[in-house]
């Protein structure tokens, strides 16, 4: 049974300073409405909603056409980069603000924890604040009285319960606040990033409690930046990006996608991808060069991202020379997961073509570097590319491409075992043996 049903949800925010000028806008709109004419300041962005634009004039679409169904007892994690729209979604669900379009249908009561200690007053004691906070979160006095001892127990601050809250340390504060929220008996619990504060012990306790809550049949919606707690707690993860639900499903898969988001899919990096990712010393006016493409090829010229260990890997870097350059260098490297370069090569190593790079005219070029066969093990690799003109301009692309190598060992008669071959490099080396005694 669905407990939350989000249908075609849109949320719009106005950019810029609100106040100066809006009285004129309001009067304009009102006058137009009175005359029965169209509102000149109406949501113009509405007409363009088919387009991909998120920012439209002075309107910003924080949420765009969200559709989500959550069933009872699910623990759903919501992840995404900062500014993706996660907190906005939770705010609408918690009724703190209203949607611009669409609706959310809910079954059961909702309790939200968008911030710990909401409503805590510094002058009141812990005891008084527990009652106040509980009342704010929707508990009745009766409920609070019966649950009070449990709450104090969970928070571990029984000795300090009658001291004004302004004397508490931040840890105690958070423990008490979470304890109150954790004992709410609502059908739906919405938690936004509150576990970021608090030590390890506290976080474990909270996660444990949330597990209990979901075990009791209640639905939990959990926003976090901690991928480990999301994977630990959630049965389903939703990835939100730029106001839209990009992915929805198994925690492992969605989290992996979120973490790898920066990688370019496939074996070609196009000009726009490169423009997004390039770092280093880049000249704005009169640039010397521009990297236009990076791709991986095999001997036949086929672009691919899975190579056999027995074949060479060719990295092709295409670049545009925008003016005459003296001494252009291209450095390609194979990097590990952390972007650390392990295995590299520079164009100047090859004396034959290095000369060409000493003086290069403007135009479009493609340079290729061949990484020989029988070097790599059974693993995943990333490509870094640096193109630079010493002391003038330096473009750096980190982990711009990825590829996999399939390595089965050099001796087909032997079973190496897949994981044993997961080395960064496994060149074919020579072995000898001689008897000493």
């Amino acid at each position: 049974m669905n407990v939350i049903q989000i249908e075609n949800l849109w949320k719009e925010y106005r950019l810029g300073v609100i106040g100066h000028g809006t009285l004129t806008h309001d009067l304009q709109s009102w006058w137009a409405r009175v005359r029965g004419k169209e509102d000149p300041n109406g949501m113009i962005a509405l007409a363009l909603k088919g387009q991909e634009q998120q920012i439209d004039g002075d309107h910003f679409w924080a949420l765009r056409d969200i559709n989500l169904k959550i069933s009872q007892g699910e623990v759903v994690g919501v992840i995404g980069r900062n500014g993706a729209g996660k907190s906005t979604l939770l705010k609408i669900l918690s009724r703190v603000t209203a949607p611009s379009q669409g609706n959310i249908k809910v079954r059961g009561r909702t309790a939200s924890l968008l911030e710990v200690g909401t409503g805590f007053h510094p002058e009141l004691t812990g005891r008084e604040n527990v009652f106040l906070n509980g009342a704010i979160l929707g508990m009745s006095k009766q409920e609070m009285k019966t649950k009070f001892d449990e709450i104090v127990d969970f928070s571990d601050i029984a000795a300090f319960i009658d001291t004004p809250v302004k004397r508490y340390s931040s840890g105690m504060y958070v423990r008490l606040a979470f304890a109150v929220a954790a004992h709410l008996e609502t059908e739906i619990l919405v938690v936004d990033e509150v576990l970021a504060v608090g030590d390890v012990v506290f976080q474990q306790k909270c996660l444990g409690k949330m597990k209990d809550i979901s075990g009791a049949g209640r639905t939990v919606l959990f926003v976090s930046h901690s991928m480990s707690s999301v994977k630990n707690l959630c049965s389903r993860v939703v990835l939100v990006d730029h106001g839209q639900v990009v992915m929805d499903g198994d925690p492992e898969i969605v989290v992996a996608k979120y973490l790898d988001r920066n990688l370019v899919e496939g074996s070609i990096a196009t000009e726009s991808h490169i423009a997004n990712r390039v770092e280093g010393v880049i000249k704005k006016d009169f640039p010397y060069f521009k990297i236009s493409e990076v791709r991986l090829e095999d001997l036949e010229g086929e672009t691919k991202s899975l190579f056999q260990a027995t074949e060479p890997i060719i990295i092709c870097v295409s670049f545009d020379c925008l003016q005459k350059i003296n001494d252009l260098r291209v450095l390609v490297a194979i990097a590990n997961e952390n972007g650390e370069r392990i295995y590299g090569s520079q164009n100047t190593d090859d004396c034959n073509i290095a000369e060409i790079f000493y003086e290069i005219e403007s135009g479009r070029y493609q340079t290729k570097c061949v990484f020989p066969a029988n070097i790599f093990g059974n693993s995943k690799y990333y490509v870094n590319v640096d193109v630079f003109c010493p002391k003038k301009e330096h473009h750096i692309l980190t982990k711009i491409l990825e590829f996999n190598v399939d390595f089965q060992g050099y001796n087909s008669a032997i079973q190496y075992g897949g994981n044993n071959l997961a080395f960064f490099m496994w060149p074919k080396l020579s072995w000898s043996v001689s008897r000493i005694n």
Partner: protein
Amino acid sequence: MSKEKLSSDDQSWDMVIQPKTGWFDIDIKELWRYRDLIGMFVKRDFVTFYKQTILGPLWYIIQPLFTTVVFTIIFGRVAKISTDGLPPFLFYMAGNVIWGYFAATLNATSGTFNTNAAIFGKVYFPRLTVPLATVIVNFLQFFIQFFLFLGFYLYFFIKGATIVPTIWIIGLPVLLLQMALLSFGLGILLSSLTTKYKDLKFAMGFLVQLWMYCTPIVYPLSQIPEWLLPYYVLNPMVAIVEIFRYGFFGTSAITLSHICISWSVTLLLVFFGILLFSRIEKTFMDTV
């Protein structure tokens, strides 16, 4: 699969969160459910007012006392404004006690959205609970000051001053109700407007001050010239103050029609206040 289709078509949703809000969208049942919260807010406001102070609740008495003394000297002795034959000290104290409640409540409720933006932005509870709690907390302040007034009243009465209590004393609860409604309605009206146009925040302070002078606090209604009277009585506080004094002293220039005007204006303000509040409530967090 058909089971799922049934549940999604099922109309038994407890709540539907939607963009449009009606013009008059006050959920009384919900307010009743949160009555404990209103009580909590009242307790919180009352307790924290004088925590860590020495004089504590005595401060509720000192303020009207000193104000009355100053008024007696300045308006009574120096400016020699008539008080319709009533003892000046008592006259001014009566005005202060009434006005004290109104001004305090109006100032507090008109800032509802702005001062509570932080908590409103984090959790949902019926927003009306906050101004309601303010109205109630200030009653406590009123009662303390009222007892001070009663003390002086009895003193003057025994001393034989020309004060005659009338049957209108019984109307005191109704007066309180009207004052509560007025400050509540006007307060939430202004609060809703202030979320967008912060000018009102600055205007509030001195407008309330000026309003006091437009109300018969430091002078009686009888002092108002004929030509000004029709506009003057549009001020709902006029009737409240005058009836209060009439009930206790027996002297006032107030008429029944004035009382009717006063109540009409009050109810009108409450109506518009609630109207605007319920419109703004859902989306003010985006613009406050």
